[in-house]
């Protein structure tokens, strides 16, 4: 089964009297355990595509199958459930809950998923260990560095064992060295079998992926395999 199967989706916003056609027919297939980068200048429809893939938004037309399930016409609450179980978000600005400690931030998706306290503890601790923050488990986000915060966000994204990890400019707020560390985490996740979609405008970051899709004016401009081998595989 394909991880993701998008067929000719469009998205049109109505702003005042103007119509903004953010996506004009995008078709995209993704196999399990693929690692792709979505690139494009601002206004290319990159964010809109990411919102649709992340089930934060529904397309105006077209079909979207996530692991064989049609999610293109779901209600808000149904989408929330899909996001909870199948999507892991990593944002540029980390988006952690400020007053909650690392553990609580990571277990949050499991709470909304309805898991018991014992199960949550097991899964959250495992996810925190994967990103190497076991010794910071009771720290609040403001007691962590930028890189550490992004690791927490990654732990939160993968704690539910999602179908897709969707990372929107994950290194945008980090210095180059820390950014590389974070990319290494993604590489490891991919090696462990996760499907990863990276949204970025930096070519070097996109190089970590195995396939790059370039958007322009709401359409796919190019879709090609990256020549460079994955650093961990080389």
């Amino acid at each position, binding site marked *: 089964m394909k991880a993701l199967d998008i067929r000719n989706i469009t998205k049109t916003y109505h702003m005042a009297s103007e119509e903004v056609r953010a996506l004009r027919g995008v078709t995209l297939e993704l196999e399990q355990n693929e690692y792709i980068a979505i690139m494009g200048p601002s206004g290319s429809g990159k964010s809109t595509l990411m*919102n649709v893939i*992340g089930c*934060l*938004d529904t397309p105006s037309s077209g079909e979207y199958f996530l692991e064989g399930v049609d999610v293109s016409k779901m209600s*808000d*609450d149904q989408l*929330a*459930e899909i*996001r*909870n*179980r199948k999507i892991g*978000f990593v*944002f540029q600005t980390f*988006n*952690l*809950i*400020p*007053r*909650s400690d690392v553990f609580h931030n990571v277990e*949050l*998706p499991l*709470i*909304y*998923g*309805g*898991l*018991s*306290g014992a199960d949550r503890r097991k899964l959250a601790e495992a996810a925190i260990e994967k990103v190497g923050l076991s010794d910071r488990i009771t720290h609040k986000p403001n007691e962590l560095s930028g890189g550490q915060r992004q690791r927490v966000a990654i732990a*939160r994204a993968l704690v539910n064992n999602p179908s897709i990890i969707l990372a929107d400019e994950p290194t945008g707020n980090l210095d180059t060295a820390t950014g590389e560390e974070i990319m290494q985490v993604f590489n490891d996740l991919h090696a462990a079998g996760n499907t990863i979609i990276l949204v970025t405008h930096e070519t070097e970051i996109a190089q970590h992926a195995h396939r790059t899709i370039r958007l322009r004016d709401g359409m796919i401009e190019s879709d090609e395999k990256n020549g460079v081998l994955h650093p961990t595989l080389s």
Partner: protein
Amino acid sequence: MRYLYELRESLRIALAAIKANKARGVLTTLGIIIGIVAVVTTMTAANGLQNSFKESISAVGSDVLYVTRMPWIITGNFFEYRNRENLTLKEAQKLAARLSEAKAVNPSSYTQRDIKYRANLMEAVTVVGTTDKYIRVSNALPEYGRFLIPQDVQYKRNVCVIGSEIQEKLFENTNPINKRMKIGRYYYRVVGVMEKQGSAGFFGGPNFDRQIIVPITAFIKTFGGANRSFSISVKAPSQEEMADFEYAVIGEMRKIRKLKPTEKDDFSINQMNTLMNAYNSVMGVIVMIGLVITSVSLFVGGIGVMNIMFVSVTERTREIGIRKAIGAKKRAILSQFLFESSVICLIGGVIGLLVAYGVTALINNLMMPASISPFIMAVALLVSILTGVVSGIIPAIKAARLNPIEALRYE
């Protein structure tokens, strides 16, 4: 189970949010506190009034009928009652002879006189002329000394039994037994002091602690009896037979008065319920008005909470976006904010109850017996939670409906 985890998370967020904004919380809660104090105190005061009224008229006895010339509570045409014949002592004796099943039949008459002991004076004290049987129709007993005995009545002795308030004020709490005091222009010897019965005097009800009981014969001798109307108390054989017994009393009275079947009764039958009902209908209205007025302050407090909830939602738009992105459904966000407003109001309600507890203790000490009943407590807590839900619902719906994409972008 699943909802339980969500609800626990909602409660946790709510508590954290309140903890994070203490000053704001205190100010917001203040409105609710004032509202709850006002409502609870009103209810408690109403309860206290009712209890002290009940207590003071309990001396009247719930199984006693009072035959009088005019009804206690006059409704309708006053002149119809005004032309009635006085009830005489002779009629009382006749009634006693006819009602063999009654536990007691006792005539009384009332007047007001100034009373004096040494330099102390009390004005317009109720003087009751009655017999030794008074004690059998009333629930009160003497605290010191004795009550009237048949010989007092038979020999027209100038003796009296005084209420507790008279002992306090006229005799300044000294032992009054066998002291000579003046009732009007006549000397009476104190033979007993009645136990304290509580007063409903503050709204015009009888105050049994401020009356003097004398033998009816001495009463007539000193204060005159020719033009007086007596009231006849009749104690029913049992509480259950009150209704039947009332008809018996009416029948016998009509015979004594030689009324034709077509003629209306020219006397009235009263009982404790008559007073209770009149009291309830008046107090009911007063309490309702009081509650409406005090509810306004709670309403204003609720608006304060709603206001702060809107602020809270706006402040945490981004957090709402994050929660939605990772899978929080509408109801999870809704309950988060409903919990916050309810907890704020519940805290206000609890503090309000504590303050009201103090106010009640004060009322109890200074004015009248009052206490917060468990029922009032439960109502106050329920009302405060309800206020929280009502004032939180609109901001919570606003939060639950936020678009996650826009919420995530919110700065």
